């Protein structure tokens, strides 16, 4: 039998169903890979027993004939999802040792569907970062290396860097991610896997440690488009506990999945051709356009005039919401407490000084500043207005086209430490991902090719609100034509 850890989610599910192998064999194989892959620092907590228990339940279910949609599939869960009785820290010292007494809706749905958990995946602290270097557990390392023989450790992207690295390195067949301003798509692109951020409200935010409430969305990261469809279907659905949850049925995305996009109109936004982006990115984009054309789609040049304001808008709204969302980490009810000096205020200040990392503190400071007296209208309210304009840009374009195709990120994976000293340079990595986040639209990254250094590059598909199907279908059409079979050499 070939290595079970090379199988996709779909193949594992089908193989278990058909009796080609047992779920326990699958879980055991992945547990072993998790252990072998520790050098990647992808997992912050390993839960082999959870995976085995779910596998045994799957094998029993098969025997009794009531398999569930994800029976036999072990997954990695980003550490932003509260998992009952399993340490959940959002990559922060602030939540060191925190064991929720509750299960997030999304992870709960996956387990309900039969999936098991291999462990909790490393991430940028509170999902703030694009390289996974802000994690309190240290950076995740990408399984990929440049072909220059230099062996420089590369960033897997972020904030879902653990998820990206783990899927790419076969430490799990699929993982949950969350995306506030590109945190699923950018790391997926960096490691050559697929990932989709659904329409805002598709996946419940209940039990997901909040970063920026109006932007946060969970989504799957997996090896291919079909696996994303399968996992997204299990993760999505109305949740009365989340006031922003969409009360609409979950489509059967996998069943309807089709690479046939003949007659679809694909928009190419001219504002995404920005200066300073490597020619290789443009080349991969151009190649993607050709492939869409080859699939029978019509290519239309479109304009999203407020694109250049998306990133600054994001860097007002997200920190503002974060500064408030993270006020609950005060050392009173859970998590870290540093006694400090000077009574309660001293305790607050010491706790939040010691518990938060640099980037988190930076963003809390920015968010506090833009909301503070006298600046609300100039910054926050202005940003919310520009956000309306950005969403309107998309609405107009979607009157002409069905989908938008862009690069996912303006570069391939960079080396660890390359951008840590320049926060702005780091922020700019999400320039293509952020607009769809601000507009709440479904967007997906699929691997499209390698750059000159042998590193993966991804393309992004953005769809109309609620049209995950369109995004997945176009993603599949692209996947079928790019035949991205590259994988990182296992050096770990």
């Amino acid at each position, binding site marked *: 039998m070939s290595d079970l850890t090379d199988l996709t989610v779909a193949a594992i599910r089908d193989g278990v169903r058909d009796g080609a192998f047992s779920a326990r064999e699958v879980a055991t194989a992945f547990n072993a890979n998790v252990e072998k892959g520790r050098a990647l620092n992808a997992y912050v907590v390993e839960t082999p027993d959870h995976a085995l228990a779910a596998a045994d339940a799957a094998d029993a279910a098969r025997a009794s004939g009531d398999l569930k949609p994800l029976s036999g599939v072990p997954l990695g869960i980003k550490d932003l999802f509260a998992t009952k009785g399993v340490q959940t820290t959002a990559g922060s010292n602030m939540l060191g040792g925190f064991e929720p007494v509750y299960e997030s809706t999304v992870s709960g749905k996956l387990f309900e569907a039969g999936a098991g958990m291999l462990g909790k995946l490393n991430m940028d602290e509170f999902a703030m970062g694009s390289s996974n270097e802000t994690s309190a557990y240290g950076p995740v390392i990408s399984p990929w290396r440049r072909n220059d023989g230099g062996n420089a450790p590369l960033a897997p992207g972020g904030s879902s860097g653990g998820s990206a690295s783990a899927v790419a390195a076969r430490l799990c067949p699929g993982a949950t991610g969350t995306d506030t301003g590109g945190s699923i798509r950018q790391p997926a692109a960096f490691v050559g896997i697929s990932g989709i951020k659904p329409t805002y409200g598709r996946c419940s935010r209940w039990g*997901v440690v909040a970063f920026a409430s109006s932007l946060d969305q969970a989504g799957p990261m997996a090896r291919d488009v079909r696996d994303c469809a399968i996992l997204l279907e299990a993760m999505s659905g109305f949740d009365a506990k989340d006031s922003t949850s969409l009360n609409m049925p979950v489509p059967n995305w996998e069943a309807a999945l089709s690479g046939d996009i003949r007659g679809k109109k694909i928009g190419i936004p001219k504002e995404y051709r920005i200066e300073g982006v490597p020619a290789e990115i443009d080349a991969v984009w151009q190649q993607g356009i050709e492939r869409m054309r080859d699939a029978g789609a019509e290519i239309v040049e479109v304009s999203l005039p407020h694109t250049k304001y998306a990133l600054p808008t994001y860097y007002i709204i997200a920190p503002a919401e974060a500064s408030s969302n993270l006020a*609950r980490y005060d050392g009173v009810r859970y998590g870290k407490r540093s006694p400090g000096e000077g009574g309660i205020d001293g305790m607050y200040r010491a706790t939040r000084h010691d518990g938060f990392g640099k980037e988190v503190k930076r963003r809390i400071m920015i968010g506090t500043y833009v909301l503070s007296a006298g600046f609300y209208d100039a910054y926050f309210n202005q940003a919310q207005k520009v956000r309306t304009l950005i969403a309107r840009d998309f609405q107009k374009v979607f009157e002409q086209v069905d989908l938008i195709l862009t690069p996912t990120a303006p570069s391939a994976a960079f080396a660890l430490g390359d951008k840590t000293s320049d926060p702005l340079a780091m922020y700019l990595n999400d320039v293509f991902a952020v607009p769809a986040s601000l507009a709440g639209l479904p967007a997906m990254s699929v691997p499209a090719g390698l750059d000159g250094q042998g590193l993966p590059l991804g393309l992004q598909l953005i769809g109309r609100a609620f049209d995950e199907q369109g995004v997945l279908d176009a993603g599949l059409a692209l996947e079928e034509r790019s035949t991205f079979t590259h994988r990182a050499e296992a050096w770990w």
Partner: protein
Amino acid sequence: MSDYRIHGATGEWEVVIGLEVHAQVVSNAKLFSGAATAFGAEPNSQVSLVDAAMPGMLPVLNGECVRQAVRTGMAINAQINAWSRFDRKNYFYPDLPQGYQISQLYHPIVGEGEIEIELEGGATAKVGVERIHLEQDAGKMLHDQHPSMSYVDLNRSGVALMEIVSKPDMRSPEEAGAYVRKLRSILRYVGSCDGNMEQGSMRADVNVSVRKPGQPFGTRTETKNVNSVRFIMAAIEYEANRQVEVLEDGGTIVQETRLFDPDKGETRSLRSKEEAHDYRYFPDPDLLPVELSDAFLAECRESLPELPDAKRARYQDGLGLSAYAANVLTAEVETARWFEQLLAATGEEHAQRAANWVTSDLFGALNRLGRTIEDSPVSAAQAAELLTLTADGTLSGSLAKQVFEIMLETGQDPGAIVEERGLKQTSDTGAIEAVIAGILAANPGQLEQYRGGKEQLFGFFVGQTMKAMQGKANPAVVNELLKKALG
């Protein structure tokens, strides 16, 4: 409005008062969670993970709290905002688990309204309401349980409050007192707040400034969380006098937060923080705007009871009650409810007698017993029976009083008491005539004087007859027969 003035050394000063009343919304569950709101539970037992602001927890709005705020707004003829929104008020305090209070700054659910207040001497005045918004209550801190620690109980954390903000329309402690009493009455009629000030269901932030009449508003101070009408009035009185003194001494009033000390009857400055609060309000991204449908609003309106002002007018104009009685009977919803049960049983044609009886006999008895109408030992149905027994001549006024006393003691129905104790009034002319004959015979001197023109002695014969009949004779019949016998 009021001519209440503070007489300072430099002349007269006018007091300007605005009140922010926090009223706890009557609801089973909290504003954004399914935890209970009941008073007096074990610490941290009525706390959901949402109330404790666990990571990833989200608020979901309780529709009943929205409904109660809307009904309250309608009851004061306020603008109802079919589109409103929740904002976060950010600050750190251990009783505030989220690090922010979910409140409504920019788009409150209720806009401008008005409350009519009744002042001494029958005058009325109108006090404007600026807005009513919904917000979360904070938890409770205990500072005296441990030498170096404070304890936090989150049972109240997240309980729904209405903040009812008045305009600075009041000019005397009396007006402020009347405003709070009237507001409380309306809230209790509507059923949106139980008005229980001792348990903290209603408390006021008192804004006071002073000025020379005709001058622009002075700088105000805010005295926080005053929890009785008496204390509110005392705080205003103290604060206004303090401000006059400061100003007349050449000082200036600092805009600050103060606390009222009920024991001393004084306000004192809360240690002024070196930096002003900066609450960094912004729309809560965990919630969507609140959009109320026409059907929702219609239901709110239809479910409103008759309110005190309308009821008072009806009692005066429709039932013919005196202004005093109408006022007293409508001021508290329980009184009105009780009175209307009574009327339903006696018929509205007996309204005046019923009103008299309630305001004198019943209130007198309740006062004496230290009871409220809610735990009156006599039910409205029993009272109706008593009034009917008086109306149909079974009981005389004094017999009725006797029966009522026995009812208060035993809780028995008046009919049973009359039956058991033979307290029925007699109109048996034969029996009365026999008694009268005996009395005339026994008092020949008085009889002679009466016949000689001393007509005041008529009362003496009535008294003697009633006494001999043990109070059970029908006074009208006694009068008539006596007149006949005395010639």
